[in-house]
């Protein structure tokens, strides 16, 4: 059922509905020229909000505070090849409300992915950003500081919290060379950071990870070889323990593969679950097809 085709001057890289209310349904997009635009799809000629946010392509975008999920102000975060991560509020024109940029003189690294999390009340928010040199940084927007950073050696293609609107529970980061890491975000050790478990799944890049909206321990990863893998995370017996100095340290659980399927020879670059029907998902691949899939028996997992 093809409804509408809207074409804009610059190619679009990413988009989200995350920061808009259920009635307005404005679509926020980032394009190859570094512009952030928010469109009303009923009247798409002129964007509702527009700003030239970055000097280079916006690689990734995420929204929070809309769709009836979570609390607090609606915000959009964009990560770009110019190495900066900026947080925007659609009510404030032209300037971002938060800007994470490299120190003067530091050579910049591309930011490949961004995600919101920990938005369980009106003040708390964190942004997680993944870069092409394997850096993962966690920024706390309430204190406007860098809360945690780590490096997973391969470029980070996708990060996602299992739920944006709860006290941060788990974070999955996927990278090149088929690896992904699951971090347990409930316990932060002062030096060791967060505990993690990692899996090497496919021989190729894992382009995207998405958690099932109805069950936050199930997530799907999409790979460069055109395959989708469905995983389940199991919590350990004790999620945190004390280390030698008595500081709390997280314990990572384990990940098991539930099912996998190969749909195409080209990478599947993008994937999303339906919030209404459990198991309904859509994915887009480099072979110019959009596929709608349904995963069954998720109740029995």
């Amino acid at each position, binding site marked *: 059922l093809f409804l509408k085709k809207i074409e804009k001057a610059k190619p679009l890289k990413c988009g989200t509905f995350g920061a808009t209310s259920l009635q307005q349904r404005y679509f926020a997009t980032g394009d190859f020229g570094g512009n952030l635009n928010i469109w009303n799809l009923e009247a798409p000629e002129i964007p509702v909000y527009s700003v030239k946010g970055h000097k280079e392509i916006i690689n990734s975008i995420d929204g929070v505070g809309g769709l009836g999920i979570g609390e607090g102000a609606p915000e959009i975060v964009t990560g770009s090849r110019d190495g900066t991560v900026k947080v925007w509020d659609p009510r404030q024109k032209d*300037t971002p409300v938060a800007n994470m940029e*490299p120190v003067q003189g530091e*050579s910049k690294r591309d930011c490949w992915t961004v995600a919101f999390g920990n938005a369980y009340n009106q003040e708390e928010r964190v942004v997680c950003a993944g870069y092409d040199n394997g850096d993962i940084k966690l920024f706390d927007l309430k204190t406007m500081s860098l809360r945690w950073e780590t490096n997973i050696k391969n470029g980070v293609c996708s990060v996602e919290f299992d739920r944006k609107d709860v006290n941060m529970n788990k974070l999955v980061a996927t990278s090149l060379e088929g690896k992904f890491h699951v971090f347990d975000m409930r316990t932060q050790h002062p030096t060791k950071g967060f505990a993690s478990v990692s899996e090497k799944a496919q021989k190729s890049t894992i382009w995207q990870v998405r958690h099932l909206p109805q069950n936050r321990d199930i997530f799907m990863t999409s790979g460069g070889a055109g395959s989708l893998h469905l995983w389940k995370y199991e919590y350990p017996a004790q999620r945190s323990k004390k280390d030698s100095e008595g500081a709390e340290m997280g314990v990572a659980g384990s990940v098991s593969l539930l099912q996998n399927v190969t749909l195409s020879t080209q990478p599947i670059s993008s994937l999303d679950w339906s919030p209404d029907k459990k198991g309904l998902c859509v994915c887009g691949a480099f072979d110019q097809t959009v596929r709608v899939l*349904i995963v069954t028996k998720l109740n029995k997992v």
Partner: protein
Amino acid sequence: MPVWLREHSWRQTASAVYLSLPVRGLRVTPGSIFCTDRYLKVSIPPFLFEAVLYAPIDDTNSTAKIGNGTIFFTLYKKEAAMWDSLTLANANKEKLQCVRENAVLKAHEKAKEEAEAKKVTKQEHKKYALEATMKLEEAERKRIEDLKEKERQKVTKELELWKKQQEDAAKQKRVQKEGELHQEVEQLKERKKEKMNKTRVPNEGTSKTRLKATKGHGSYSMFSENLKEEQLPAPRSAATIKINFTSRVFPTALRESRVAEEEEWLRKQAEARRTVSADLSELEDLKEEEKNPEWLKDKGNKMFATGNYLAAVNAYNLAVQLNNKLPLLYLNRAACHLKLRNLHKAIEDSSKALELLTPPVPDNKNARIKAYVRRGTAFCQLELYTEGLQDYEAALKIDPKNKTIEKDAEKIRHLIQGTTEDS
């Protein structure tokens, strides 16, 4: 010579002949009995019994029972007739021989036929078994396919149902909202009338514009929106967070890597270590370790450290004679010459070192910085300040963070400016 068994007794009916042959104490096996349609032979070496039968018998159906010290033959006649005797009379040797041979041949043929028949049946059995297994597997596969099909249909049905539900729900909502909108509009009209009596003019104005703005789709949401906006927190106060990135040494991101150049540098290094200069005649009286340029370099370094610069230079000279492709030798010798104030030689050696330190890669960064600095110092001491400054700036370009180089460069600049002012 076989021992003939002569004691045998027989009787007959119209259709069969019963022959009993005592074989006391002898071990009889089925192989010792040989029978065709005209000839019967029992051979238990050295005993032998044979009979050329009066008339042909049906040898396939005839039986021989072995037991109790006798063999009991039941031979079924081909033609139902009474025999005059068990065996043919006037059987001369040749005839016997013929009959024997025939019998053997016949037996052979029979055996062959039987073998073939067996083979054929075996084949057929195999085929049958194969077909049976194929059928079973097919059935299994079909069962699984059916299960899958059922599951698929179930799920599509569920999906259809869910879609319908959504549509119905959406329709209902729309109807509801229109009803509500109607109500709200009327409520507002009433409120307006009330407000007319009060002095709140600006509010009236705004509520008027709100009404005017109601059109089409998203209008009913305006009210709920405005209320909600008052509940949302104000936009965050803008702030910036500065970040650092973890540096990437070898291997670097592919598009930034100087792979080709790094490979070249590694290759050069490997080659350099391997070359040994040709002229070994003078060096024959040296000890084994003294012929190793690496060892000589270390010796030179030690002597430099203790302050014995001439000895260090000697060591490096010898090393260079052995292997003139190692840049570090020239580099260190340059340092010695600086200390000895052989400035021209220092410049020469630093230049040679720099030559050998191409292509420029992160690996030989430190070496190149040292070479530039030493050459720069030498130039300055010769009062060729501009050349010196050039070298210092080159060193600074490689490593912009080095404070000593910066300071020295500044000093030289001042000196140059000082001299130009004078002249």
